[in-house]
């Protein structure tokens, strides 16, 4: 019996390692990576402005005299794609997640097939498909094509999180709600979903970080995100090593920053649950 209890749970996720407060070694690893990346990001342009400073300005979207140009910023484009995609993916994910626990076989089957199909196609292929293949029938602008493809893909993954989250709520909750005279849908919206949100927020935060990284794939659709801005710079200035170093560090800082945010959020959730 003891052996079974001692079994450690192995969790491997797509996102970066999210540090827990009490785990000091992981936290310091995060610290080393985060502050190290920031100091490299600051030091390289200061020590050798040509080309690091130019790369930084070009990629992040400053013009020569450090005026921030919103429209040409690769950083803004990356965020635009990521945030819009995660919002759409959450909506799709919630609907499909509910569909997957639906009692109606048709809805259930449709949602399950959707998840199976989408999870079986590489995101890169999906992006090409929605951008070039579907363009035969409907005209989708570049950024919306990217957002639609990312949302459809991540919607499938997030729906699985929602489904697991809903199923993790003890059955007694639903039974009690039904016993109080609520209908099934009332019980789901008033009792089950509010509790589910607390359970699913950390894994969704993880998906957000994974999506931020995968958003670099949209650069193939001529969306001028961080990676494409970097490639544009490197292909004319020929500073390949310098450019991709800067792009990688900017991505690293972003993902580390958000992983910390997710960890803090998780912490808050825990205390909220304990107090409530």
């Amino acid at each position, binding site marked *: 019996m003891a052996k079974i209890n001692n079994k450690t749970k192995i969790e491997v996720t797509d996102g970066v390692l999210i540090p827990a407060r009490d785990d000091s070694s992981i936290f310091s690893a995060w610290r080393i990576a985060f502050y190290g990346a920031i100091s490299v990001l600051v030091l390289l342009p200061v020590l050798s402005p040509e080309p690091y400073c130019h790369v930084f300005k070009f990629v992040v979207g400053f013009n020569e005299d450090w005026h921030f140009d919103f*429209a040409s910023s690769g950083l803004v484009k990356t965020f635009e794609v990521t945030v819009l995609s995660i919002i759409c993916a959450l909506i799709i994910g919630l609907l499909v997640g509910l569909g997957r626990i639906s009692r109606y076989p048709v809805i259930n089957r449709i949602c399950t097939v959707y998840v199976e199909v989408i999870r079986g196609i590489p995101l890169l292929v999906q992006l090409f498909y929605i951008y*070039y293949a579907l*363009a035969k029938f409907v*005209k989708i*602008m*570049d950024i919306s094509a990217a957002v639609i493809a990312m949302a459809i893909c991540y919607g499938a993954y997030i729906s699985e999180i929602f489904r697991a989250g809903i199923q993790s709520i003890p059955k007694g909750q639903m039974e009690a709600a039904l016993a109080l005279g609520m209908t099934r849908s009332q019980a789901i919206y008033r009792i089950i979903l509010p509790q589910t949100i607390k359970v699913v927020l950390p894994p969704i935060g993880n998906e957000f970080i994974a999506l931020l990284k995968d958003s670099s794939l949209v650069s*193939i659709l*001529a969306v*001028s995100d961080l990676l*494409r801005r970097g*490639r*544009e710079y*490197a*292909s*004319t*200035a*020929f500073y*390949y090593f310098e450019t991709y170093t800067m792009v990688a560090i900017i991505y690293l800082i972003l993902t580390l920053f958000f992983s910390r945010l997710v960890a803090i959020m998780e912490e808050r959730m825990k205390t909220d649950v304990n107090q409530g």
Partner: protein
Amino acid sequence: MKKGIILLLMLSIASFCVFTGCSKEQSAGKKIIVATDATWPPMEYVDENKNIVGFDIDLLSAAAKEGGFAVEFQNTAWDGIFAGLAANKYDAVCSSVTITEERKKTMDFTNPYVSIGQTIVVKKELNGMEQLPQFEGKKVGAQIGTTGAIEIAKYKNITLKTYDEIGLAIEDLSKGRIDAVVCDNPIAANYALLNPKYKPVLKIVGTPFTTEEYGIAVRKGNKEVVDMINAGLAKIKAKGIDKELEKKWLR
């Protein structure tokens, strides 16, 4: 049945080995590996038999034959093509490379072998826009890192969209996602005048607005390969082979 399939597989592998073995035996003398981004018809592209063909390919192959060396072409994505050259992955880049001052800083070039200019391709129904400055406030596409993209970037108010391949830019133009594409005139002509899919919807406007010369790029300081190719190019020029090839591919 299963055995038959395995046998077939083994046979095809064996024949493939024999085939590649043969092609290797043929190459005599010094062999150079040449990178090309075969997405640039009619200069270099992959034909329906998956062979790399085009004007550049024929020209360099002819120069190699005359100059007594062998070439092997390697299909490489454009936006890393010069990085690969610097990293010693191949000896030369023969891929419609325009000789520019900026590029000369990081690589050496052979003598120019053909001159071209940047041209604007638009949709058929667009009238009255013939110069690049007229496209201010519009979206104009080009292949990443090409002289076309560099020309567009000179105008701050034009939204430059860069593509991995020129074919994707042309496709987006035909779908109305961008307003124009800037590329070398032989490529523009190939898509807008010859390609059965794009011929009815696209047209070339104005005349080429730059004068550029193609050269074969070689790693900085690699004089041996430069001299070798230059000697071959001089010989085919003397024989008039280059004019024949221009007639074959560029008319």
